[in-house]
């Protein structure tokens, strides 16, 4: 039984770690701006495309990765400045629509630049190699991802809890207006949030596309949506919540993909039911259930509306 489930679990943990890195961007931005940054998944995709083109230009790979992460952070920063900052006083729906517009724009730009053809992500040595663990053979990146994710999250939590910028972030997410009155540079904090979020999405993109090698304009949509679901699941605004949510969703979706055979081997069903197609749907069902049962997510804080 364990041998049956283990490979799925491994895939799940790996993809969960990648979702986690994207989910952090969602959760931090939401915590501060109360904005679902629908374009975040596309920033992740753009990071992949930028990497493809950089590697094709012949630069050394390590430099590409560094430049790619920097470029992704800059893109995140630019998106905030161009598309969200002018709408700071507008109704929330306007900003969210602007985010959808940015997502649409990024996808179409990439479609235009790539001509709609799949781009093959460069092979990064070592993490692209295969290793065998127990009953599963996989890429090194699968094992590296969760470890790297946890290290990055640890660093991020340290940053949030023990630095001045982090304190400002926490203050702004608690009370936007008061923080402004207290002299916190709101724009600086928001930009920092976007830079950190995009940087992590960039790291996530490197890991993800090393695993799944093909980048097209729609590559960011599903992982983006799933990461967002993970962020809501864990309690939006909470970084550890987003990470836990991401791992749960990553594992759940891979288990569903193998559910037929798991149930079959457990003797619960006699022939395949075609349940694998529900892997995405299950994620969303999970989301609706958690929203209805506990709207603030696993680790979210409750807030009271003042009348």
């Amino acid at each position: 039984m364990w041998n049956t489930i283990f490979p799925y679990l491994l895939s799940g943990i790996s993809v969960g770690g990648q979702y986690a890195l994207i989910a952090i961007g969602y959760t931090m931005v939401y915590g501060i701006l109360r904005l679902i940054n629908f374009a975040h998944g596309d920033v992740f995709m753009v990071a992949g495309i930028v990497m493809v083109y950089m590697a094709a230009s012949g630069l050394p790979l390590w430099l590409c990765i560094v430049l790619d992460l920097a470029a992704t952070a800059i893109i995140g920063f630019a998106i905030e400045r161009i598309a969200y900052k002018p709408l700071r006083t507008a109704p929330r729906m306007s900003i969210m629509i602007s985010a959808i517009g940015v997502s649409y724009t990024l996808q179409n730009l990439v479609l235009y630049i790539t001509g709609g053809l799949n781009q093959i992500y460069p092979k990064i040595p070592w993490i692209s190699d295969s290793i065998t663990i127990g009953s599963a053979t996989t890429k090194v990146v699968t094992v590296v991802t969760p470890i790297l994710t946890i290290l990055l999250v640890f660093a991020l939590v340290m940053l949030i809890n023990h630095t001045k910028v982090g304190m400002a972030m926490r203050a702004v997410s608690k009370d936007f207006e008061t923080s402004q009155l207290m002299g916190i540079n709101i724009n600086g904090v928001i930009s920092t949030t976007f830079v950190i979020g995009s940087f992590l999405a960039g790291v996530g993109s490197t890991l993800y596309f090393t695993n799944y090698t093909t980048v097209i304009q729609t590559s960011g949509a599903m992982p983006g949506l799933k990461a967002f679901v993970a962020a809501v699941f864990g309690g939006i605004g909470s970084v550890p919540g987003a990470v836990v949510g991401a791992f749960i969703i990553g594992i759940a979706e891979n288990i569903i993909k193998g559910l037929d055979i798991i149930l079959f081997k457990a003797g619960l069903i006699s022939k395949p039911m075609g349940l694998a197609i529900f892997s995405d749907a299950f994620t969303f069902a999970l989301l609706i259930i958690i929203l209805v049962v506990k709207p603030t997510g696993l680790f979210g804080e409750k807030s009271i509306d003042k009348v």
Partner: protein
Amino acid sequence: MKKKLDFPHIMTVVIIIAIYAAVFVAEQTIAPTSMLFTVLKKGATYALVAVSMNLLNGFTGIFSLGQAGFMLIGAYIFSIFTIPVEQRGIVYQYYNGGIIQFTLPVVIAMILAGLVAALFAFLIGLPVLRLKSDYLAIATLGFAEIVRTIFQWDKLGPITNGSNMLRLFPTFNDFNIRNAEGNVVVYLSTLVPMIIAGICIGIILLLINSTYGRALRAIKDDEIAAEAMGIHLASHKQIAFCVSSFFAGVGGAMLAMYQTTVQAKSFTTAMTYEILLIVVIGGLGSVTGSVLASFLFVACSEWWLRFLDQKQYISGHEIPLLRNGFRLVVFSFIIMIVVLFFRQGIMGTKELPDLFRKKKTAEGGAK
């Protein structure tokens, strides 16, 4: 509402009649292959769906992103029940012709499409309508994705044809009146969808201007005050959600007729986003705006901007940048400009009759 028709309302009626008359004349005189008719057909379909979304997002203030899901339900119900029995063997080729062995008349199938969509809306509305704005948005979006998967499930194949295409059901072209030889005598394939959309939008307008419509707007403006005025939030939100979904379902049926084929795969979140952008471009809270924006959006994307996708030459020189995909880039920039700099959209919250009224200082000052 008022029995006396004032000048703005007379003008509105005149304009609408003139448009329908022009479409009728155009259809009889211009070649049916013109892109004009494609734009009008798809525009009418999108107009209905956009108005139904506006009823939720613009008038009731419920931020729902489930539109594609309800359109999918409508499109499927319509096509499942209208494929001629003798064609079912071809369509349901892997499922022995499917298990539904009768057909319904087009109009009844369209209404059924709406009703089933509304029923789904009712069921999903029970838990999710309690959620606050963004949570509701993401939950409805998730719902649409779940619906899409369920309709693709192999085990439902005898009904839904699995993930395979449904086709050979009646389309807009079947509204044309043909003579005994099968030649078209009167072209109605554009006019009829425009009339269907017109009737549905008319009903939505009636609802918006009724006492229920006022209650919905009250909810949008201030939920707490609306509740204190005795408006039951849950049931009124549920009404808006179901009515909106009903018309999204009918819109889905129209989309099926326009596309001539239906496949769950194509009812993606991108479709919902597209409709949302139309609503925003038209103006949240303006039916006229949604309708105008739908036709503009479809015309731009399907017709006027198509040349951007082809290489063009001016006196022998190739214009740079123009190649496949450029249209969408230009298009997205236009949308971003509207979203960022013309936040009120084309119409703001004004309707067609308002354009013939003298500017009210109160309203004009608010912008």
